[in-house]
């Protein structure tokens, strides 16, 4: 990883360079880092959960000290992650979307969005976490959240819209603090 600004500030060769660098405010650097990590974790885990599913337990039930002969298995389903569990848009929302007149006009859009959403969250989350094109990836994450917001407005999920609004504020704050960004793979863009 590079710490370009820090190195720049340490440099004695170019005073011009130091003038163009922001002041090394540790608090702002920590703030930028925390915000970046929060948004990254939020996106990554949401993307990972798109691959989660529950399957019946294979653990046989013991009755009176013996494994039952009926084939009864433990009641609690087991959560697992697998490609075949992938569901970009949750089923309950998908049903609502398919009934919307706008979506009926663009039948191709929903399956495409469903396919792209999970991987997009994972990729953007990882880019933000490792500081790869941080500002661009934050901007793209903001666009993704706007698309989610539009969908929720469509099906009148107002609480979800408000909830995504908070995410948007955090993204804007992260962008504002991006000049204090440290610990990144590629700071450009």
């Amino acid at each position, binding site marked *: 990883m590079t710490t370009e600004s820090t190195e720049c500030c340490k440099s004695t060769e170019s005073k011009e360079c130091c003038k163009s660098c922001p002041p090394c405010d540790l608090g702002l650097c920590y703030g930028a880092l925390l915000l970046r990590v929060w948004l990254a974790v939020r996106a990554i885990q949401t993307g990972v959960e798109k691959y989660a599913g529950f399957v*019946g337990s294979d653990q046989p*039930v013991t*009755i*009176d000290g013996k494994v039952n002969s*009926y*084939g009864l*298995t433990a*009641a609690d389903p087991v959560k697992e992650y697998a490609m075949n569990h992938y569901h970009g848009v949750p089923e309950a929302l998908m049903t609502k979307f398919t009934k919307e007149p706008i979506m009926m006009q663009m039948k191709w859009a929903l399956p495409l969005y469903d396919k792209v959403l999970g991987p997009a969250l994972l990729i953007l989350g990882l880019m933000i976490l490792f500081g790869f094109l941080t500002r661009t990836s934050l901007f793209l994450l903001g666009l993704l959240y706007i698309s989610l917001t539009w969908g929720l407005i469509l099906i009148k999920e107002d609480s979800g819209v408000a909830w995504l609004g908070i995410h948007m504020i955090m993204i804007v704050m992260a962008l504002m603090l991006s000049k204090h960004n440290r610990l990144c793979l590629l700071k450009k863009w």
Partner: protein
Amino acid sequence: METPPSVISRRDFLAKSAAAGAGAGLVLGMPSILRAAEVSPSKTLNVALIGHGKQGEVLFDAMRNIPGLHFQAVCDIWDEHRNAGIGRIRSLQKHTPKGYEDIDEMLATEKGLDAAVIATPDFWHSPHTVKALEAGLNVYCEKMMSNTIDGARAMVKAMEKTGKLCQIGHQRRSNPRYRYTLDQLINGNKICGQIINVNGQWNRAIKSSQNIAYNPKKVVKPDILSKYGFKDMHQFMNWRFFRDLSGGAISDLGAHQIDIFNWFLGTVPKSVFATGGNSYFKDREHFDNVMALFDYDTPQGQVRAFYQVLTTTSAGGGYFESFMGTEGTINISEQSAYTNIFKEASRAPKDPNAPPDKNEPPLSWDTLVMRGYLGRKAAPAAPPPPEANGGGAIKAYASKPPEGFTLPGELNKPPHQPHLENFFASVRGEAKLNCDARHAFLSEAPIYWVNPSALSKQPIVFTPEQLSV
């Protein structure tokens, strides 16, 4: 028509059953009297899918995880369904099965078939099953056996004449949760005590009961529809609502659950009194709601059972069968969410001088929980004080809320899979059918009289002729 020598006649059957000391009671609970087919246990079974609509797809999905099956052919009169089935099989076993519109052509062409899985509309069950059995195939056929009792009789006769296996799709009969409940809780540990009442229902929302729509650009050709007994595409898609093609809601939904009444009680009812009507879907031939009362004589005593099927309301607990006794009640359903077990809280203290009660549970409920026979539910919320809901007068009549329990385990497979596994294991000679056509007939026969009772608004007291093959 002359009775083939291998077929057990009605009188012989009743006489043998009575001689066994239990009439239809034991018969309903006995394993198959039929021999298993002579197929090597290690052999891959070649299977034909006959009918690949919605239910055919459900059965196929349940068979996906059963090893040793090779899906050789798909038969469906609609190329949309047929091609969908071919595609599913191709993606599962990397082999393209042959598709047929006509079952006769399929049976004449395909060699080496071991079994057929039939999921066609009810009025085709009997002809298709008889054809497949006579062609030497073992058959798994969806319930209801037929839209007519004579169609069901023909299936039993064909099974017994050919000596092939015929399993009817009452899939709860192979469900571990149901088998455990009957064996261990009702019969073994007698947690219900004496069962006095049975109650069952399938409450389905209007939304789930609508006509099935179709794309006008993708229809079955009129001459093919006509050839196979359908007036038009609407009737083809919605055959369940027509009297000549199906038994209606009591058959579609009720048959599964009334079968459980008979299986668990170990006998068949002696009478039915039903009512029903087209209260909402007025253009349908079959009733959209039916309520039926059955009277049973069981070894424990009289049992009265109530069953309702609603297609206009989903509230009220969904679908379950409830066995209500002096000691406890078991609400069992294919859905875990609808399954509940309750211990009676307000039973009178036992008289120490009273003679032993044969229906008394041998173990206490606490012991059953400790040993793992039952799980315990969280304690119910305390009822509000009497002052809050009408004063002490109500308290005098109210019962203490019963304590809740759960089954100790679940089924971790699609609900139809164990029944299909039992069928294929029986074809291999490794098991006996859990619901062969004769046992299914005994249980289904009373159901054929529900609609006539509702139509005539008269109770029907069954005669042996009405319930026998």
